[in-house]
């Protein structure tokens, strides 16, 4: 890595400080990946014979089983023998989390250095080497550190470290233990590259890298077709999103010939409005792919096939929020195109609503949380869509805390259930709520902490969710009155009507969120236990290595709100800290470029909004407690399938089937029948190639018909020839 200190960075206030070690942040997880990967391969790789062909014939012939030990793979439910810890489990358990905690420590010290610098205007960009330079395209391998990426780094390394700690316990008995940590570290590396990238292409490395890691991790237990399919589906849907991201980059390059954020923010103003809207819409297509928004959200619920820590880290806290980060990072562009911003907000709201409705009727605990994530992501996009970037990022951070807590909580529940079923060799589904019930007596810590997270996500005051969700709804309401968005029309619908509608949907979704989260808590922890008599004795709290992260996340979910306390609650602590922190990156440039004024509400409207939100949250919880009767639930085996509207929700509005029949099947079938057999085999090969071969054959046969071998035939041929020639002469 040849360090080229760019002159500007030299003068940068951060250049002297520990921030210069910024490149170490991604490098640490990469080192973790390399080490763990090597350990994984070393354990399982056994060198093949020098002459495989001969060897192959022997083994088939002799038919004896060489008995590949070591990688015998106990699936979830085929554990007949005592779980064997992986040879290098100890070593890997140290490398994996240690690398993350080191990165987190470094991130904290850099954060410290940044806070000491009073008002950081310019981002701190470090260029290492020119990655691609042809013609007038010049992309450097460069990292950019500013307030926004600092927040993201802290979340990624912090929550990541906790989740690594958790997975030491959760994945303890898995034979692919080092491989799991290798992929997890690789994921954190790519996520950091995504966040720290100084230009869109460098960010794109991280963007597709995290897609790769989610593919590898979702399909971690690949010997089960469903998991492998889920992984493949995730990657391809992400890839469709990446297609949008690519087109956005090409548009940017074609029109302002620069792809790095600093360059774009300078030249964004001279982009034509149509072009800016196109760029932003394509960028949003990318976000929809990565952050599971309509229409590309279908992969996230299936991604639950991966191990729970993966769901917590990738599909709750970090990767799925990449889309929100992208929109925040290109705040300048989105500010310039109100139509695109409105689209983002509308799609966000619709996704939130749709996912919340589906969440109501899901039985798998992880699917409930998955749809809740899609819904909360919808909220974040509403936030950044309407221009309240700080609110969006704030909700991203708090969501990372309580959603990671919820997932890890469900992880410890599943771990306990699995251990119980494992002990009694039963094959019941360890993730289905109908087999749970009344677990508060057996998992007290998890129960308490999960309630904190539920209250947070529902929006009960003083918990982190309340502050961030309320901030978004306030942002929407404020801009509904008068703002650049309000007076632009979106496909005929005037802006302000749209914004009020979005606010309404937001409130209603908050109600649904409160309902399905309470439903989950009731069915899992309250009411009679449905796991089964013998298993009940085996239900116990997970080891401390799994519960400790839960506690830390619990604390963070509770006090997360203090990050950005609204104005009128000054009594609680320093108000709007995150707002001031992110202003130079997201606030000022966006407003400067559009010449808009910061929006604020009168105090009584804010009180009114907060009141409404609190009422909604409490109503949701009480409604769920009143309506739902956990006692009447029966274990999954005897459960009767729902009917009517409940069935539609349980089957996820049949969206998967719709996609399959409208896109996948015609594409695959069409290309098999139409493209391959018809055009390739029949038309080109059959008609032209072999056809011409048959044609020459045909002429050949005609020729040989005349060669009868009989002399008189030849004599006649000669005479006829002569007659014809002479005839020609006579006609001359």
């Amino acid at each position, binding site marked *: 890595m040849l360090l080229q200190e760019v002159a500007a960075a030299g003068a940068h206030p951060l250049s002297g400080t520990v921030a210069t070690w910024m490149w170490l942040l991604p490098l640490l997880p990469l080192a973790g990946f390399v080490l763990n990967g090597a350990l994984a*391969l070393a354990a*399982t790789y*056994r*060198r*093949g014979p*020098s002459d*495989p*062909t*001969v*060897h*192959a014939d022997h*083994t*088939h012939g002799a038919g004896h*089983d*060489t008995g*590949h030990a070591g*990688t015998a793979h106990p699936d979830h439910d085929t554990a007949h023998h005592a779980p064997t810890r992986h040879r290098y489990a100890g070593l890997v358990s140290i490398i994996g989390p240690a690398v993350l905690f080191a990165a987190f420590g470094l991130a904290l010290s850099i954060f410290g250095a940044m806070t000491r610098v009073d008002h950081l205007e310019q981002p701190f960009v470090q260029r290492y*080497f020119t*990655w*691609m*330079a*042809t*013609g007038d*395209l010049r992309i450097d*391998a460069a990292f950019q550190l500013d307030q926004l990426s600092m927040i993201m780094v802290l979340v990624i390394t912090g929550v990541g470290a906790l989740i690594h700690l958790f997975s030491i316990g959760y994945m303890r008995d898995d034979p692919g233990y080092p491989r799991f940590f290798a992929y997890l570290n690789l994921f954190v590396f790519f996520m950091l590259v995504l966040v720290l990238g100084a230009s869109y*292409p460098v960010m*794109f*490395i991280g963007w*597709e*890298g995290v897609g*790769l890691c989610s*593919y590898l991790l979702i*399909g971690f237990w*690949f*010997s089960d*077709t469903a998991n*492998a399919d889920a992984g*493949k589906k995730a*990657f*391809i849907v992400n*890839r*469709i999103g990446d*297609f949008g991201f*690519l*087109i956005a980059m*090409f*548009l940017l*390059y*074609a029109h302002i010939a620069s792809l790095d954020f600093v360059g774009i923010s300078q030249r964004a103003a001279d982009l034509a409005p149509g072009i800016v809207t196109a760029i932003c819409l394509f960028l949003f297509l990318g976000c929809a792919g990565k952050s599971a928004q309509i229409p590309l959200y279908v992969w996230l619920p299936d991604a639950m096939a991966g191990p729970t820590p993966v769901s917590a880290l990738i599909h709750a806290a970090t990767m799925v929020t990449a889309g929100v980060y992208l929109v925040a990072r290109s705040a300048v562009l989105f500010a310039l195109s109100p139509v695109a911003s409105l689209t983002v907000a509308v799609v966000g709201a619709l996704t939130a609503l749709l996912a919340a409705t589906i969440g109501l009727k899901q039985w798998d605990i992880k699917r409930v949380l998955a749809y809740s994530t899609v819904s909360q992501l919808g909220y974040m996009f509403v936030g950044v869509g309407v221009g309240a970037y700080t609110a969006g990022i704030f909700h991203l951070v708090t969501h990372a805390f309580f959603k990671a807590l919820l997932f890890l909580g469900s992880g410890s529940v599943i771990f306990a259930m699995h251990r119980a079923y494992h002990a009694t060799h039963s094959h019941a589904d360890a993730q289905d709520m109908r087999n749970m019930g009344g677990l508060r007596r057996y998992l007290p810590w998890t129960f308490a902490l999960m309630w904190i997270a539920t209250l947070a996500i529902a929006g009960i005051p003083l918990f982190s969710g309340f502050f961030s969700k309320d901030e978004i709804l306030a942002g929407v309401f404020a801009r509904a009155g008068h703002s650049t968005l309000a007076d632009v029309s979106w496909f005929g619908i005037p802006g302000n009507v749209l914004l009020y509608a979005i606010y309404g949907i937001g409130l209603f979704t908050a109600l649904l969120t409160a309902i399905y989260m309470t439903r989950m808590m009731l069915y899992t922890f309250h009411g009679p236990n449905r796991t089964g008599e013998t298993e009940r004795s085996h239900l116990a709290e997970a080891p401390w290595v799994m519960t400790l992260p839960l506690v830390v996340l619990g604390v963070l979910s509770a006090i997360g709100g203090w990050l950005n306390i609204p104005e009128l609650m000054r009594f609680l602590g320093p108000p709007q800290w995150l707002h001031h922190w992110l202003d130079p990156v997201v606030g000022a440039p966006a407003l400067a470029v559009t010449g808009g004024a910061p929006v604020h509400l009168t105090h009584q409207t804010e009180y009114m909004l907060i009141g409404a939100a609190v009422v909604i949250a409490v109503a949701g919880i009480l409604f769920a407690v009143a309506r739902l009767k956990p006692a009447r639930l029966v274990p999954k085996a005897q459960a009767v399938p729902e009917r009517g509207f409940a069935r539609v929700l349980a089957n996820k509005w049949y969206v998967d089937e719709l996609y399959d029949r409208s896109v996948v099947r015609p*594409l*695959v079938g*069409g*290309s*098999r029948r139409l*493209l*391959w057999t018809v*055009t390739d085999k029949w038309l*080109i*090969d059959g008609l032209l*190639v072999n056809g011409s071969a048959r044609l020459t054959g045909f002429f050949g046969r005609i020729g040989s018909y005349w060669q009868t071998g009989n002399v008189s035939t030849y004599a006649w041929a000669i005479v006829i020839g002569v007659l014809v020639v002479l005839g020609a002469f006579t006609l001359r």
Partner: protein
Amino acid sequence: MRDFLGGIGYERWVLPALLLIPIAGAILIYVARIGRGRADDIANAGSARVIALATLTIEFLVSAGLWWTFDTGRSTWQNVVMKAWIPEWGANFVVGIDGIALMMILLTTFIMPLSVLGSWTSIREKLPAYYALLLVLTTGMIGVFISLDLLLFYVMWEVMLIPMYFIIGIWGGERRLYASIKFFLYTMVGSLLMLVAILYLWVQTWQAGSPTFSYDALLRSVDVGRTAGLLLFGAFFLAFAVKVPMFPFHTWLPDAHVEAPTAGSVILAGIMLKMGTYGFLRFAMPLFPDVAMLPAVRTTMLALAVIGIIYGALVAMVQPDFKKLVAYSSVSHLGFVMLGILALTMESVQGALMVMINHGISTGALFFLIGMIYERRHSRMIDAYGGIARVVPLFAAMLTIVSLSSIGLPGTNGFIGEFLVLIGSFRTQPIWTVIAATGVIFAAAYLLWAIQRILFQPVTHPENERLTDLNAREVVIMAALVIPILWIGFYPQPILARMERSAAQFISDVERGATERSGSARVGN
């Protein structure tokens, strides 16, 4: 390094040496066979393998020198060697390289030793003939890349065809005869038309007084009317379109790949497909820039290229045979190259050149891997495998990395090429580029689906339980291919710098030629 090579007059003898070393190797193989009886299977003809490997490694080391001595500043031909060949016709043995030829030579000499290593145990009979053919094939290929005389180019083009015909025809799979004949006829028809075009050009120069085949002279003096230009360009186009292969002319590729032995497929995909695009870059477009720039001609070629991308990807998705799948993926990748060349911006042409190199490496690696499991399981059908990632973890890791590079994941070499092609073509052909970009999605679809059905999912066939993992030789091959995949992915700058000048020269040749029709010669020679 540069001064040491300069000292021994490296510039003057390197290119002829590159042509002669393989021939010497081939002869040595047969010399070593004298008095060793007729049996030519692995047991007692192993020496042929060793000699071939040694020769090709020397060839690689000699050609590696070019990497340092290549002067990125000069836009004229370098390491030029001129010998009289047939003075009466004005045909000389003129060889020289520029950025494009340099990279193609290095790709060839890099892949050839690996292909010998790849067929170490899979070729079991008639070894001397096989390895001699490989060596002659190397000469043919390098000859095509370095010849600056059209007649020499044509001779080398044919020298390259014949060994490949035999390699597919003798050591191939079940339908090898059909495949090799089809391959041969397809390319033959194209190249005969090209010969007619070359002779037509030659007659032009002959009537104008001094008959010559030299590329630069023709570049300067070619001034045929519009219709003649169209016909000539058509002839060149057909010859190279068959080789690329562009959409309608591609049906020989799947058959040739499926039936060729591992090394045959690797060389065919890795290097011989680049002959077509190299032909466009060197001969078809610079010689007839006005015809190439005709809107009708350019749009049809663009259409064929983009159809090739989508069609190749879609059809690859439904192939039961893994080799056929990779063959159709090659059609798709080379569609990108053609799109890059036709877009005529600096980024897109450089991107096209990068895709040519990267495709050589990643598809070559894919074929090696298929060859390896074919040696163990004797089946190329995707469904014959399943869940072998648990049984052969290193193989699974390699296949995943190479597939990701073929899909074009950022951080691997595939991305560099495709990104540059698309970002470059977008500036001049936005609509075509957007359509072509969907090819990126299908690429992910077909390859991931394939490796999922092979590596993941439960183990269905009992034989897969007894598969053995890669041995030392195979690890060396894969390491030699995976390292460039990652290295080019993260640091492609040296390659781009070396090709920059030639790409600029190509664009100016075509654009200036198209405008004022009298193609200007390269400065000095």
